[in-house]
């Protein structure tokens, strides 16, 4: 009733194949983008920018990358943190070593470094799959951890391995205030999301999905597994690498190798699973969930405790956070294994048929 596509007739293939074929969807997304670009900067406080919005935007981009590999191509990866690290340090090296290199080319070059790294560590996927591959990609993680800690060349020979960037600007505009950081990341996110969406609905995306659904059958109908798998690794690690560079440059400013530990990989995988595998929307929802949940728990638990009249120490809170986080993930997997994106789809379907049950 609220949401119906009756009467929307398409008269050309082009109209039929646009990203949002339904008028309501188009308007909704347009409004959402407008809200994100105009409404949010007017309303949000500094704290919201630095604690929620900027991490969410960057993590959504990384989750998008992971989703291409895990959700669309079906190759489980636990090395996403490493791809982020390679992107961040690659971009940093180009940024620091090449004089007068603008920020955006540095980010793209960082992404390309991650691509090379990703394809290299994607090679085992040609031989192994499933859980074996998941563990194999951990090799990338530990190798990157070690590489940026021990090989001093990557960190410009700083003793602690901690590096920092300053004076970031794009087309002459400084990126210093929270609003400008947010808008910059958001713009990149929109570009990347559009790119990813168009990739996954094109020929190459279909190849990835065929490989995901059954690789032997895909090979039989003429899809080259090597090309499809490695291209998924390349595209995914490029996006993750860009997100890593953004995370380091924009969000942290100064960072050390431990910022991209194996926990980051797990978090990214959680985002994809909770958001919904094989859906661009899912990446956004999952990132929002994982970014907001710890902050929410951090605020909410002491509040509940104060209602009950007990004071909680910070260690108790942090342990309780771990427990609730873990329990929520398990609960989520039990209740909705297909993730938030599926809930979204169910909601849309309900709106479409309302007031009838089906």
């Amino acid at each position, binding site marked *: 009733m609220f949401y119906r596509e009756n009467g929307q007739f398409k008269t050309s293939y082009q109209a039929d194949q646009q990203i949002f074929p339904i008028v309501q969807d188009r308007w909704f997304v347009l409004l959402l983008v407008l809200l994100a670009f105009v409404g949010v900067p007017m309303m949000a406080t500094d704290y919201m920018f630095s604690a929620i919005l900027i991490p969410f935007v960057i993590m959504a981009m990384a989750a998008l990358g992971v989703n291409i590999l*895990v959700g669309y191509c079906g190759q*489980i990866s636990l090395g996403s943190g490493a791809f982020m690290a390679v992107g961040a340090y690659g971009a940093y090296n180009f940024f620091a070593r090449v004089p007068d290199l603008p920020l955006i080319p540095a980010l793209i070059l960082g992404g390309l470094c991650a691509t090379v790294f990703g394809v290299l560590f994607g*090679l*085992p996927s040609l*031989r*192994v799959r*499933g*859980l*074996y591959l*998941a*563990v*194999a990609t*951990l*090799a990338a993680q*530990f*190798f990157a*951890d*070690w590489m940026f*800690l*021990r*090989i001093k060349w990557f960190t410009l020979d700083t003793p602690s391995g901690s590096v920092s960037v300053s004076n970031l600007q794009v087309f002459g505009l400084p990126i210093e205030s929270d609003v400008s950081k947010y808008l910059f990341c958001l713009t990149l996110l929109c570009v990347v999301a559009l790119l990813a969406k168009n990739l996954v609905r094109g020929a190459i995306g279909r190849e990835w999905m065929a490989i995901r659904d*059954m690789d*032997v*059958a895909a090979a*039989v109908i003429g899809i080259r597994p090597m090309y499809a798998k490695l291209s998924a690794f390349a595209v995914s690690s490029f996006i993750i690498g860009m997100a890593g560079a953004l995370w380091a440059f924009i969000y942290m400013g100064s960072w050390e190798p431990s910022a991209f530990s*194996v926990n980051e990989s*797990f978090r990214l*995988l*959680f985002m994809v*699973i909770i958001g919904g*595998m094989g859906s661009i929307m899912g990446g956004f929802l999952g990132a929002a969930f994982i970014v907001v949940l710890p902050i929410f728990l951090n605020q909410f638990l002491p509040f509940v405790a104060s209602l009950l009249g007990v004071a909680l120490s910070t*260690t*108790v809170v942090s*342990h*309780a*956070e*771990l*427990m*609730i*986080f*873990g*329990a*929520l*993930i*398990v609960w989520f*997997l*039990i209740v909705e*294994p297909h993730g938030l994106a599926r809930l979204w789809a169910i909601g849309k379907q309900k709106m479409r048929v309302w007031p009838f049950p089906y």
Partner: protein
Amino acid sequence: MGFFLETLLNGLMAGMLYSLVALGFVLIFKASGVFNFAQGAMVLFAALAMARFSEWLSAAGVGNPWLVNVIAFAMAAVVMFAVAWLIERLVLRQLVNQEGTTLLMATLGITYFLEGLGQSIFGSDIYKIDIGMPKEPVMAFESVFEGGILINQEDLIAALIAAVLVAALSLFFQKTSTGRALRAVADDHQAAQSIGIPLNRIWVIVWCVAGVVALVAGMIWGSKLGVQFSLATVALRALPVVILGGLTSVPGAIIGGLIIGVGEKLSEVYLGPYVGGGIEIWFAYVLALLFLLVRPQGLFGEKIIDRV
């Protein structure tokens, strides 16, 4: 030569310890097809439980250290059984028939939960487990080589305990009717169920066994390194072992552990100085990775057959 053998022996013994953790992975994967990432958290949880129980028992006035350790071990084992039962009841039973990735994620959730729970109940400081292992190293083969070989007694005992555990487990799997049921479930869930093997009970049992293995591993690792949060990361060190040995093979876990242990130590000693040291952690993974390129199912894993 003496130095090389010493490194080799140390590697073998470290490998035995990895095998202990890897064993937990293999047991659960075989019986329920779950890749149990929570094994590391279980090791931490068990070690914390045992350390604190023995501390409380000593405080309660139980004098004999052997008695304290035995009672604490038993109590910790009971706690692990409870954890196993709860995991089966609350998590696995709800997730029957889901994909491998979903189950993997669920065990990651369990990992977080157990880490939080263990530290809330038992505290998050560094604790000691003292099972009376001799700390001082001994010299061996002094007549054979000049200078002999320095052997860490603690490692030697740990390796012995691991060997005994493995022997006991293989007896349990081969000779008892429960063991036979476990093997049947591992072979084929549906076939096992159709001849009347209760799947749920088997899963509880296998998680209990994995809990005990985690307890033994936690005890040994804990007495070596102290019981602290970093114990949970032992699982990450043991993963390449499982991959190398094959996810479904108990002997694979042992031999994989030995290979990884030796490889790590030798690479650290002979290769480490050239590349800046600290390569232990990724070398194991790269070793396992190279191995996978040749044999995708690991050393002793079941052959992967592609069917369309």
